[in-house]
Each structure stands twice: as structure tokens, then as C-alpha cells.
């Protein structure tokens, strides 16, 4: 089973992702901030990381920069409410950029493209 780490400060949203992606057949770990994400990455191996950008403490871009320093091989999807972060070239380091939407179809599709079922 492919392992996904979700970094999302909105707890209900994290719960939604956790449930939906589990249903789609992934093993999902959800954390609420960047520091917790870095701790998880140090402990476990993940096949994919999905991160929000605007979060209290370190933001998603800082998180990506740090992950790139640790593990270059893990694909990353940015999942933000803001379209405009796409203009920040640091977000280009991620493998995909999905704007938050009431339907999770696009997110699920991108996950499938990157790591398969």
C-alpha cells in the first residue's frame, strides 16, 4: 500500500483527505504543521507528500525547501486555496500544484499519475 503524508493545518480538511484517500486505497498520515511533517519524514518513508502553503509556523514553501534538502526523491503535491502561489518559483519544485476544490477528483488524479494506485 502506497504511503501518503498530508500536511494541512485545517483539522477537518485533514480528516476529509485522510478518509477519502484511505478509501482510495492509500495509507494516509495527516499532520497539522510543517514541523510535525519533518518529524514524520525523519521517522518513516512516504511515497508522496501533499502540503498546504499557508499554515501557522513554517509555511508549505519552507517545508518543501527543507524536504528537498533531506529527500529529493519523494514526489510533492501542493494543495493550496491560492492560485497565485504558482507564481512563486519555489512552488515549481513541487511535482504538481492542485488548487483546493470542493471535488477531490483532480487531487486523486494527480496522486494516481505520480504514484499509481
Amino acid at each position, binding site marked *: 500500500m502506497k504511503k501518503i503524508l498530508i500536511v494541512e*493545518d*485545517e483539522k*477537518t*480538511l485533514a480528516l*476529509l483527505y485522510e*478518509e*477519502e484517500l484511505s478509501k482510495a486505497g492509500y495509507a494516509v498520515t495527516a499532520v497539522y504543521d510543517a514541523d510535525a511533517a519533518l518529524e514524520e519524514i525523519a521517522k518513516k518513508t512516504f511515497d508522496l507528500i501533499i502540503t498546504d502553503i*499557508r499554515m*501557522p509556523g513554517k509555511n508549505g514553501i519552507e517545508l518543501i525547501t527543507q524536504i528537498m534538502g533531506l529527500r529529493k526523491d519523494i514526489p510533492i503535491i501542493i494543495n493550496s*486555496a*491560492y492560485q*497565485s502561489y504558482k507564481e512563486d518559483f519555489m512552488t515549481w519544485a513541487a511535482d504538481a500544484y492542485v488548487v*483546493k*476544490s*470542493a*471535488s*477531490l477528483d483532480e487531487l486523486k488524479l494527480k496522486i494516481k499519475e505520480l504514484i499509481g494506485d
Partner: protein
Amino acid sequence: MIEKYNLLASDFQRDAPKELMLLSIISQSFFQPFSLEDNLLVILTALTSGSGVGFNRAMLFLKDGDRLRGEMWLGPRTPEEAGYIWEVLSTPGIGYVEIIEHNRALISKNENTLSHRIKSLVFTMDETSCALMPACAACNKEIYLVRDASNDPMVDAKFRELIQVDEFLCIPLIARDEVFGEIILDNAFTRVPISPGDIKLASLCGLIASNYIYSTTLHKRLLDAEKMAAMGEMAMFVTHQLRNPLVTIGGFTDQLLHPDGVPDGRRERNLKIIRDEIQRLENIVYQMGHFLRVSLKEPAYFEPGPVIDSVLESPEVRTKGLGYNLSVKVEPCLPRVLCDPTSFGEILRNLLDNAFDATPPGGTVTLRAYKKNKTSFVLSVRDTGRGISNRDKDQLFRPFFTTKEKGMGLGLPFIKRVMDNCGGQIEIQSRTGRGALFRLIFQSREEGKQP
């Protein structure tokens, strides 16, 4: 030996060269908080007052898109009025402020006559208009002296009828090669011919006026750009604030509608989440509306004690304060404080709210209210929370900046607005991990004393 002089040399001797007088009048007015209209009036004044160039009348057209629009016309309407005005203006000791005051009154008095008449005059800067005076000067960016208007086919007929003189001078207002308008000068009453010297001085005035209009326009564009940037930031923030609850509502609704259904326990949970998120949306909409709408009341002196008490006793503060040590140190004899009492209450509520949010349960929040000295009063809230990083400190008062999961980032900007409005100050002391202290310093006065 070193001598000190004021930046603004106020009164020149009467025998000072009139060029110097003129520049003095104009440059001094730019130091005053006058509006664009008032400063343009100053320039027209300088052109028409006895101590300036001494034209009888000055007319101003401003460029508005591809049109030249009549704005102001300064000068007497009749020779009698001219005599009276020049007598007033040549009174010894009269300064430029008085002259401007006088002219402002004159403009408003003439609103129905001279200025009103010129305001109905608009020239489109097309080929037809540009071939005729006065638009010709602005179109060609040249100064023209018309000597025989009655017989010159190059003068616009409507304009000839309006100005009713044979000799007038057209000065285009140009800065950075851009046309901003035109000034037209004449000696309708004294009938003194316009000399080359007058033209030189008038063109100097035109140059100053154009650069002034140019810098004012730039300043306005800058302000507009800043406003747009703030609007953009707000739009971005609202997008985020609205999108998150919408995603949550959408996602959990989809789960409910899925043909496989959801386990029994989750049904109710999903509905609760959806309801909470809808409440959150409602709150966002309310707060945005509140922040955008709140117009601050005039500050006045009031007793802060009862307001502080009512905030501390309010259900929101009491509920939020559960599980914290709230230490209240309010001096018994407080002075009267300058602020609007409602805003004062909201400020305190905001500060306490932030302090509780930043502090882990069991931590201490300290409220103090005391007289700092004879003229100032301090309201301070200290917490033992996570503190504020140096990076966040710079952004604290920026609307929509927040470190809270569900904050709007409108509390501290509101506090800043209120404090600016009542002439108070805000001091913040904080280090990461060591709590924060917000100290608001208000103007105050002793009980019963008049300011």
C-alpha cells in the same frame, strides 16, 4: 559665526524684484496642506496679484482625457471691482495667506459668473480645435500671444465672445513632455500691453504649475496603486478563507451522497462538520462586513473603569478565559481617557482574545490599567504564551495577517486604527517563547479638569 534662517522666508520687502516675490508666493504655498485646486489657485493668484506678474485675469484649463476643460477663472468682473481688489491686495503687510483666502472667496463669489462661464467651455483636442486658439497652444506645446483677437480667424469664436479682449497670452502646462492644461492671461482692465518680460515670468509660472500638477498626479496614482494592492491582498485572503470551508462542506457532503453511503456514526458527524463550517462562513462574512463598514467615532474623554468592568464580565471573555489565570490590576482612581468608549471596549476584548489564543491553558494573562503620568493612561495586556517572532512583528498590523488557524487578521489593524484616531501609541514587547506584552498609551486628563 553661524546664522540661522527659517526655511520659509515670509515677507520680502516691497522693493524686492517681482520675480522673487512671485516665486516666494508659489513655493510657500506648496509647503501648505492645500488641495490641488487651492494650489492652482495660488499660481493663478501669483499671476494676477500686484506683487506677482500683475496680469488682470488668469484662466485655467485642465486636460481631461483628450479634452481641455475650463476649471477656474480668476480676476475681477468689472473695472470697479478690479480697483477694489487691487487696493486690498496692495495693503502693506498683507501676506500670501491673506491673498489666497481673498481669492478663494473671490472664486466662490464668482462661481456663478466667471468660473461658471469658463466651466461650460470644453475643447476636444482634435485637428479642428487644435487649429484655433486657445487649444492650439496646448496641442502644439507652444506659447502664443494673441494681439488682435477680434480680427484673427485663428481664434475660436466662442472663446472670443467669452474673453472679450483683443490681447491674451496662452501658456501650455507641460511636464515631462506631457500636456496637463493651459493658462490664459490678459489685461482686460488696465489694457497694458503684455511685454516679453511678462511672458517670460508667466512661462516660468506655467512650468512650476505643470510640475506641481504632474507630481500631484503621480502621488494620486501611487495612492491608487497602494489601494489596489490592499484590495488584491484582501481578495486573496477572502478566497482562502472561503475556499477552505467550501472544500470541507463539499467533501463531507459528497461522502453523504455516495451510493455506498457512510457508516451510521459518521452521518451525524459529517452533518455537524458541515453545520460548523457554514457557521464559520457566516462569521467570515460578518467580520469582513464589520471591518469594512466600521467608521470610527470622534474620541472624547470618558471614565475607562466601567468599560473595563463590562468587558471583563462579558460572557465571551468569561468563557474564553476559562482555564487561564486572569490577573486584573486596575488602579482605583483612573483618569479620564481620550478615546471612543465603544472602540475602547473592543480593543480590550481583542487584546484579551489574542492573549488567550496565544497562551497554553493554565497560563497567565495579566490586565493592567494605570495612570502613567498627568497626561497619559496605560492599558496593558501581558500573556505567557508563545510570543511573537521578529518576522511576525513587522506584519502584526497588516490587515489579514494572522498566525491563528482560524483568525481573520483584523483585530490588531482595528486597534491601530483606533489608536491613530485618538492620538494614542502602541508598544509591544515580546520574544519567541517568552510571552507578549501589549501596552496601549492613551491621552488622559485628571477628573474634572478641562483640557
